[in-house]
């Protein structure tokens, strides 16, 4: 399955715009459209180059920006030509609608921020499951009464259960997670390959199934390829991939 990297840094085009506005320290009520548009398009282009999925909404806003930009560039003849047209041709700023949307969106982004801290605070309190009180029950079969619960009550009960369950598990195994750096992994791989004095099956370079280890290993290999420290060969499509340390004496140092 191809890697689909989703960009989490922005929650959509409005979020990105807000970010640009903050970054450029621009007044939200007086956005320099040309500048913002340029930055925005640059961002999209970068996403494109990194072959990241660009949601269509980003393109919609890009088009909107371009439209606003062109409107603002247009000379305002009307004012001169029909001077007798009164108030309502008091030019509407083409940016108004966008600014309104940005401000509205920003409110909720801030509110989401508040929710996040409330979530954290609440997470510091632990509750307990209801006690088993069956010993106290007289054995009367509950009769079939009208119930007063909804599907959501059921879901909510289930969620509580899921949250709670975490605490119940015995704390038998607690493996300290080790951070492995790409650099370190590169050295490891290179040493391994050099000792071998031959080529190694690509798959064998992934001894641990832990996903961070896999990712780091993969990136380490890419980096080694980039630095021309290892050779990679594959005989045919979908064939086995072999990795080998480059034999040349001088190590290619330096970036890129």
């Amino acid at each position: 399955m191809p890697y689909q990297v989703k960009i989490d840094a922005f929650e959509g085009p409005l979020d990105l715009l807000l970010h640009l506005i903050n970054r450029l320290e621009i007044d939200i009520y007086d956005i320099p459209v040309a500048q913002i548009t340029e930055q925005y398009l640059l961002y999209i282009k970068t996403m494109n180059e990194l072959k990241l999925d660009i949601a269509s909404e980003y393109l919609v806003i890009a088009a909107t920006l371009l439209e606003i930009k062109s409107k603002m560039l247009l000379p305002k003849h009307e004012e001169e030509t029909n001077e007798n047209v009164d108030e309502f041709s008091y030019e509407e700023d083409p940016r108004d609608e966008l600014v309104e949307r940005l401000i509205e969106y920003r409110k909720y982004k801030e509110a989401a921020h508040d929710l996040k801290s409330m979530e954290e605070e609440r997470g510091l309190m632990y509750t307990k499951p209801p006690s088993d009180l069956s010993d106290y029950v007289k054995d009367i079969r509950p009769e079939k009464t009208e119930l007063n619960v909804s599907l959501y009550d059921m879901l909510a009960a289930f969620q509580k259960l899921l949250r709670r369950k975490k605490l119940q598990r015995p704390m038998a195994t607690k493996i300290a997670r080790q951070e492995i750096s790409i650099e370190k992994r590169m050295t490891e791989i290179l040493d391994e390959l050099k000792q071998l004095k031959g080529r190694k099956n690509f798959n064998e370079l992934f001894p641990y199934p832990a996903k961070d280890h896999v990712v780091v290993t993969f990136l380490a290999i890419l980096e080694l390829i980039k630095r021309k420290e290892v050779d990679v060969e594959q005989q045919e499509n979908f064939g086995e991939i072999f990795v080998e340390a480059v034999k040349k004496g001088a190590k290619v140092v330096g970036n890129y």
Partner: protein
Amino acid sequence: MEIINWSSILESLLFAAGDEGLSLKQLAEVLDIDEIKANEIIEVLKQEYDKDENRGIIVVQLAGTYQLATKKENAPYLKKLVDSPNNSTLSQAALETLAIIAYKQPITRAEIEEIRGVKTERPLHTLVSKALIKEVGRAEGTGRAYLYGTTKEFLDYFGLKSVNELPKLPEKVEDDYIQEEADLFFEKFQETINS
């Protein structure tokens, strides 16, 4: 005459009820007293807990019920009891969506997407399945889209008594509201394309 020790009884009841909690009404019924008296008893227990620092539990009011919960200060120890520290918190997308619903309920998906500027199907699914929101009806007009609102679980999850307790929606947000992570992210992008 026998003296009834309300604090002790209340503590027993709240303990047994666990995270199901007990409403004032239920408490009054079980204790066979009126709600005003029940409320007094709860206040007394709260105070006892507060003034005795050897207690590790507190009384909280969540989603219309009273429950016992552990003191926040002791969270580090409780965390150690949990095998994986991954308490799956909500994603940014889910939080934004939830914020919009919380403040504008009842609201349709289209209206939420209008505000966020992006598709919001996935966060909505997550929120429904986590029982934080629910369908509360159908919008008028063509399509009769579902309307979403928050649930009791939402209140519990965020430690609220009721939706009225939500912080006021910021009318004016500080302009220098900085998103540091995003900033960092952007730098990287620029470096990449410039390199």
